[in-house]
């Protein structure tokens, strides 16, 4: 009797175990299309779409955006057609698919009419937005879906492409997945001050909500190769693209933004005309806001320590004393000039504070900040900013002369 009950119990337990280990709504990963990159362009129908619409297969839409999704891994066979972007033949580690429409989600759902595997956004790494569409629509609108979606994680990066986002998401080498090396490049911001600190969706959302103008990394593309260069300025309230900063401006920017990591080099020419290079190893930056009788001003104190890493002086001489002092001043002067140009662009050309002066004012003078908060960009355009840059050479690298 007891053994029968024991058996019954064991069967019960086995049954339950086999049932609860299964997942109710599981979906096999092989049956899904994981998209790792998303490109947003001005609407432009692909050939495929045009042919389909010619057959009456369209739906009412205004063709505002063209979305490119980069799916990894791509297809193994080479039947890829004339759809731009994907490598045309052979094995490829990714495939780009494009559709045009009015809303991102509608476009995504439209994919399910064409492909057997549904799209899934858990692994989206990078979003590339073309400059042209960012001029027309604010990022708040373009990214609204992405921020609401429950699959896409807020650590996804956002980049701006100079031309079409599709080109940026295309690489000559089919074994390289563009979305991955784009995220890889952003991680280099610690050795070059020409790359902005990576901006994730979470950070971007915070900036858009706080009502400040902000800066996003630019990506250029030529012959299937991408390059990071400069940044795009977005206006506070509209979150639309208003202008660009060059690589040099970004270098200058890194001297007045405390949170930027050290890194980067300064090039100057010695009196004799030889190239001398200074690599920044450590940087301490202090932004000191001042408010007197309602007048706001800023003073930036930046000091860096670095190594003298290259000196082309032909008959090698000892690098010390007056020569080093002179070089240090030269380096500082170059930074001074760069900052000058950059601040002119920010204050006069674009009237947008993307350098984070707002934060130091907010922290140190909360009451004044409350007054100027709503039209800070206009106030910023007239605020006097002074700065002093010091560069110290502490080390000649591994070769001393």
């Amino acid at each position, binding site marked *: 009797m007891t053994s029968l009950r024991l058996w019954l119990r064991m069967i019960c337990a086995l049954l339950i175990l086999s049932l609860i280990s299964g997942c109710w*709504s599981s979906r096999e990963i092989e049956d899904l299309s994981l998209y790792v990159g998303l490109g947003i362009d001005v609407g432009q129908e692909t050939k495929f779409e045009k042919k389909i619409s010619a057959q009456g297969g369209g739906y009412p839409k205004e063709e505002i955006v063209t979305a490119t999704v980069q799916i990894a891994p791509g297809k193994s066979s080479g039947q890829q057609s004339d759809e731009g972007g994907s490598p045309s033949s052979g094995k490829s580690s990714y495939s780009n698919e494009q559709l045009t429409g009015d809303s991102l989600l509608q476009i995504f759902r439209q994919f399910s009419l064409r492909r057997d595997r549904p799209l899934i956004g858990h692994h989206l790494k990078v979003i590339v937005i073309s400059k042209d569409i960012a001029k027309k629509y604010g990022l708040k609108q373009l990214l609204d879906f992405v921020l609401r979606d*429950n699959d896409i*994680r807020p*650590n996804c990066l956002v980049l701006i492409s100079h031309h079409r986002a599709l080109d940026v998401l295309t690489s000559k080498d089919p074994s390289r997945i563009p979305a991955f090396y784009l995220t890889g490049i952003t991680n280099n911001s610690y050795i070059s001050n020409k790359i902005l600190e990576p901006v994730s969706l*979470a950070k971007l959302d*915070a900036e858009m*909500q706080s009502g400040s103008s902000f800066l996003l990394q630019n990506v250029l593309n030529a012959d299937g190769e991408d390059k990071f260069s400069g940044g795009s300025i977005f206006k506070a309230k509209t979150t639309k693209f208003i202008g660009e900063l060059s690589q040099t401006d970004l270098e200058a920017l890194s001297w007045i933004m405390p*949170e930027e990591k050290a890194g980067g080099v300064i090039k100057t020419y010695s009196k004799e005309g030889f190239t001398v290079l200074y690599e920044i190893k450590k940087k301490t930056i202090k932004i000191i806001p001042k408010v007197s009788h309602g007048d706001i001003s800023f003073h930036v104190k930046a000091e860096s320590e670095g190594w003298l890493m290259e000196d082309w002086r032909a008959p090698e001489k000892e690098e010390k004393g007056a020569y080093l002092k002179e070089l240090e001043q030269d380096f500082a002067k170059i930074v001074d000039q760069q900052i000058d140009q950059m601040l002119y662009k920010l204050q006069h050309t674009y009237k947008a504070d993307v350098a984070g002066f707002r934060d130091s004012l907010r922290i140190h003078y*909360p009451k004044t900040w409350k007054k100027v908060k709503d039209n800070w960009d206009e106030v910023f355009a007239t605020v006097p900013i002074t700065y002093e840059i010091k560069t110290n050479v502490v080390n000649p690298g591994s070769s001393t002369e």
Partner: protein
Amino acid sequence: MNDSQVKISTTQAVVIIVNYMLGAGILTLPRTTSKAVGTPDVWISIILSGLIITGVGIILVTLCRRFPEKTVFQFTREITGRWIAYILGCANILYFMVIAAFEIRVMADVTGMYLLERTPTWAIVMVFMWIGIYLISGGLPVIVRVFEVILPITLVIFVMEILLSNQLFEIGNLRPVLGEGIMPVVKGLKPSLLSYTGYEVMLVITAYMQNPKKSNKAMTWGLGISTSIYLITVVMVVGSLSLDGIKTRTWPTLDLVRSFEIQGLIFERFESLLLVIWILQIFSTFAITHYCASVGIRDLFKAKKMRTIMYCLLPFIYLAAMIPKNVYETFALGDMLGNVSVVLFAILPLVLLLLSIIRKKGGKHA
């Protein structure tokens, strides 16, 4: 099983308080409080309300200690007379039931959003409730033993996850301190007070404590642990995502964990781990409230069959959980529960305590 024989230690009482308090609130706490405060001083509000609640909690246990070995449902009768006691008792029971329903509903909403998008809600909820009833039908000692397992797991994983997010942390997001004076902090007190519901479990638990004299200590420790967890959460979420960044996030604490990836550390993403421990916490809150409601019915109506009561409550809790039509109504229900709890468990115990002193009911300070 005879519950009146069961005794729990002071530490176990602490464990119950903390497990009850940590629940649905922690995922939305940074948003609700920072919306009300409007400056980065949210964390001061959290500390202040923790202190206030400790005061309230001590009043509550002082009341309980005047009536040793009696739960709130039994001793209210002695203070106020039968009819008022019935009304108050029913209100308490209803409150416990609705809390249980609310926790279940939030759990179902969040798992539906981030974990099991295509699983029907009833399937998630049913499994949850059945396991809950399996647990509480074992009585208080079983509940406590499970809680003692759950709590350390929760604390370790939670603190680890929150600390992993330090790569996003920027101290500037928490400055300036008191930039706009003390008023914003005061405004933030209400929503943060609401998140401290849970101490009321002592109304029932004190009766089962081995050493009711130490209920003060249990209360203080329980609230202390909960306050520090809330504090860490708010500081890290506001510090990492900034005040403006969490205004529009529905579940900010979860978004904090979703905002980073760590390569080369077994897991790259930590939100599922967070959801797991958080579901454990919701489960414990659900279990204890369901249990308290059952105890309430038993003591108020002098019923005998505890297990029958528990099973009878099940469908009602389920139905209550399904009442909110959407996520907004669920949040509204949460706010309402918070308001009710202030009346039931902050104001009422004080009144009862004063009444019992005036009418000389109950023993001296035990």
